[in-house]
Every structure is written in C-alpha cells, then in structure tokens.
C-alpha cells in the first residue's frame, strides 16, 4: 500500500465513523426546530458542503499558482482533483439549498444573493472542468487550467459583492440570519470536520487517478 493509499483509508474510515456518530446525534438525539420542523437538519449538510467546496477551490488556487511557478504536473493533478471534488460539494450545497427552499419557501429556486452567487461560481468551475476535457497535451492543459483557476478565484469575491448589491435593490426572500443554537454547534462543526476528511479522501483518490492517467498517456505515446 502506498503512502497516499494509507492516507485515503485513514481519512475515509475516520470520516465515515465520525459521520455515523454525528448522523445518530443529528437525526435521533436532537429534536426538531420550532419553526422549520425536521427540514432544518439540512443545514448540517448544506453549509459544510459550501465550506469544504471553498476550501478545495482555495487549495486549487494555491496548487495552480505553484504549478505556474514550478511547472510540476503533480500540482496540476492536485488542482484539477480539488476543483472537481469542490465542484461536487458546490453541487451538494445547491441541491440541498433547493430542497430546503422548496419546503420552507414553497419554491425550488429563488434569485437570492447567496443562491445566485453560488450558481455563478458553479458555472465558472464547471467551465474549468469542461475546458480540461477539451485539451489533449498535458503541459498545455496544466498551464491553461492553472491560469483559468486563478481568474476564477479572483472573480469569486467580486461576484459575491456584485450580487449582494444587485439584490438589495430588489425585494427578495431573506434567509434566517440568527446564530446557531448552542446544542447545534457541536454537531454542526463536527460535520464540517467530517466533510473535510471525506473531501480530502476523495480528492486524494482523484489525484491518484490523474497520476495514472498521465502515466498511461506517456506510455501510449512511447509505444507509438
């Protein structure tokens, strides 16, 4: 077993165990919230998904800059993996948000600032993933996607700021803004930690695939 595989198993197993413990707590121990009922529990998945998505996008930014500096394809593999997994977490955030909105607001989608910003970023990083699939040469793919990752991340704060201003001029449903109740804090932050472990485990698996893919491409060219 390689060192990376050991990490994958360690992260995956500890993440899963903690998740089961936490799920028990969230689903069976904690009571329903007064106004929202059972559906409020989605916050334990909705918010951590966004946190981990952004953590991975940030990691990808750093890896992309390092690639441009060092020209080591290992950084590119990590950046690509982090963005793909981050994008999945971003999707989880959007989908859980929609389910929550359907129950609470009665509608699947509203052009709420946070939803809209998240959606734009989802499109932005989705473009990154599509772009990678359109380039064959590994070096070119790495450079082009590294530059795009930097542009995308620079865009994110501007998108969030702009959408906020845009929507303040129009009436829009307001998300609840109160802090978490004390008994919710532990399971909430535990779930953030669990998502982080699982996110990292999946990213490492994906990094492994990138390495293998690169090796295969190299062998194929050599055979030719």
């Amino acid at each position, binding site marked *: 077993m390689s060192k990376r595989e050991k990490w994958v198993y360690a992260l995956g197993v500890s993440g899963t165990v903690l998740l089961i413990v936490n799920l028990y707590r969230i689903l069976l121990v904690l009571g329903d919230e007064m106004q929202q009922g059972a559906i409020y529990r989605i916050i334990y998945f909705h918010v951590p998904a966004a946190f981990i998505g952004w953590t991975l996008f940030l990691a990808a930014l750093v890896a992309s800059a390092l690639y441009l500096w060092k*020209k080591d*394809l290992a950084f590119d593999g990590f950046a690509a993996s982090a963005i793909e997994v981050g994008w999945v977490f971003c999707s989880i955030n959007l989908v859980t948000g929609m389910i929550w909105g359907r129950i609470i607001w009665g509608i699947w989608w509203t052009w709420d600032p946070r939803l809209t910003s998240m959606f734009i970023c989802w499109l932005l990083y989705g473009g990154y993933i599509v772009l990678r699939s359109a380039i064959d*040469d*590994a*070096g070119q793919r790495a450079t082009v996607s590294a530059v795009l990752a930097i542009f995308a991340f620079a865009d994110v704060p501007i998108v969030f700021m702009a959408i906020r201003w845009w929507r303040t001029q129009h009436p829009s449903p307001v998300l609840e803004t109160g802090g978490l109740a004390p008994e919710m804090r532990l399971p909430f932050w535990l779930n953030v930690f669990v998502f982080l472990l699982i996110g990292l485990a999946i990213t490492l698996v994906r990094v492994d695939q990138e390495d293998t893919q*690169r*090796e295969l*491409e*190299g*062998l194929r*060219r*050599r055979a*030719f």
Partner: protein
Amino acid sequence: MSPASEAVLASDVWKFHGDFPALRGVSLRTERGTCLALLGRNGAGKTTLLRILAGLSAPSRGDVRILGTAPRLPVTRRRAGYLGHGIGIYDELTARENLLHFARLYGVENKEAAASKWLERVDLKRVEDGRVREFSRGMRQRLAIARAFVHEPDVLLLDEPFTSLDDRAIHLLQNLLREAFARGCTAVLSTHQLREALELATNVALLDRGKLKFAGPRTQAMLDLPPSIYFETETEG
C-alpha cells in the same frame, strides 16, 4: 557582442509532454558561422528542439543559450529568425504590409528600406501591393523566406525549410543562406530532404526518440552513418 563563441548552446535539455520525454538530455553546441542540420525520423524531437531554441517553448530541464543569452529574452529573439512549418504571414495583408509588420515587431530601424530590399531579393517587388491571399504557393513561400530574413538575424532556426518548397524557392533559400553564412550567420535546420540540407550543412546532428545519437562535422557524418538512417529519414515524411 557577448563573449560566448558558440551561437547555439544546449546543455542537457529535457522536454516532457506529460510523462512522455520528447527530448532526453540533448546537449549541442554550434560555432558561429556554421550550419547544423538536424536529422531524425518523425517524432524524434527535431521540431521540439527548434521550438525551444526559438523561445516558443520552455525546456522542462536543462539550459539553452543563443548567442550567449536565454532564448526568451527580447534581445536574443531580436537576433534570431524562425521559420516553422507554417509560413507565418497574413493572407489579408499585402506582401509589403506583412514585411513591414514583422520589421516593426523586430524593431528594425529603417522598415521601408528593409521591406523593399527583401521584396527585391525574393523577387516579389512587382507584386508588393498584392494581397497574399491572391498569391501562388511559390510566391507565398518566397515571402515567408523574406519574413524570416527581414531583420537580418544572426541565428536562423528553420524547421523543415525545404519541405514543400518549389525548385525556385529552394534555390533562393540556399543562396540566401550561403550569403548569410558568409557574413557570420549561424543556422540550425531540421530536414527530411538530406541532399539539400547536406549541401549546406557544416555539421550534422542525429536525433532518435528524443536522444542525440550523433553530432559531428558533415563529411564524417555522411561516411559514418548507416544507410538505414538515410533510408528512414528520407521515406518517413
């Protein structure tokens, strides 16, 4: 003038496409005023090496010096001329506008005079205001040659310059190169057409699967290389 006596110096140059090594530790040196013919089969790494020398591509490992400086520095590129697979001229512009454009990019002092001189040299003066789109194949090739020479480079990097040239253009290019060598210009050219290249070359280097198999003076090379090398080089193209 930089103190280095070699015009082109490559030391332990590696280039990876992903995990695939297109160049594997190539080391070359070319004295000023010589002409190096790069031989090798398709995929041997000739184009990759020339692109690195021209500053179009960065080596993954190793170091390259052209006239003593790094290829990507503007001062180096100003003294180098590159002619790749494509002719590198614009169809919408006239022959004169093309040369003026590149003279401007190269910071040539007297653009108009340089353009006129080279249009004359490649015998396109009478059609200088015609759009390249309307030119025949041979005319376009001659204009491409003028484009590569318009800033009077000290080092010429030519990728398969004789491939697909007509006889007139081949003759013209050979003459221009001989003149250039006479004034101390250095050339590196990759080729499939052995005869044309060897007539000009003072040195020969053979690349095989990204490795330098042989480098030496031309006469010796022609004697030493096994015939199969010639055969492969000539047919695979």
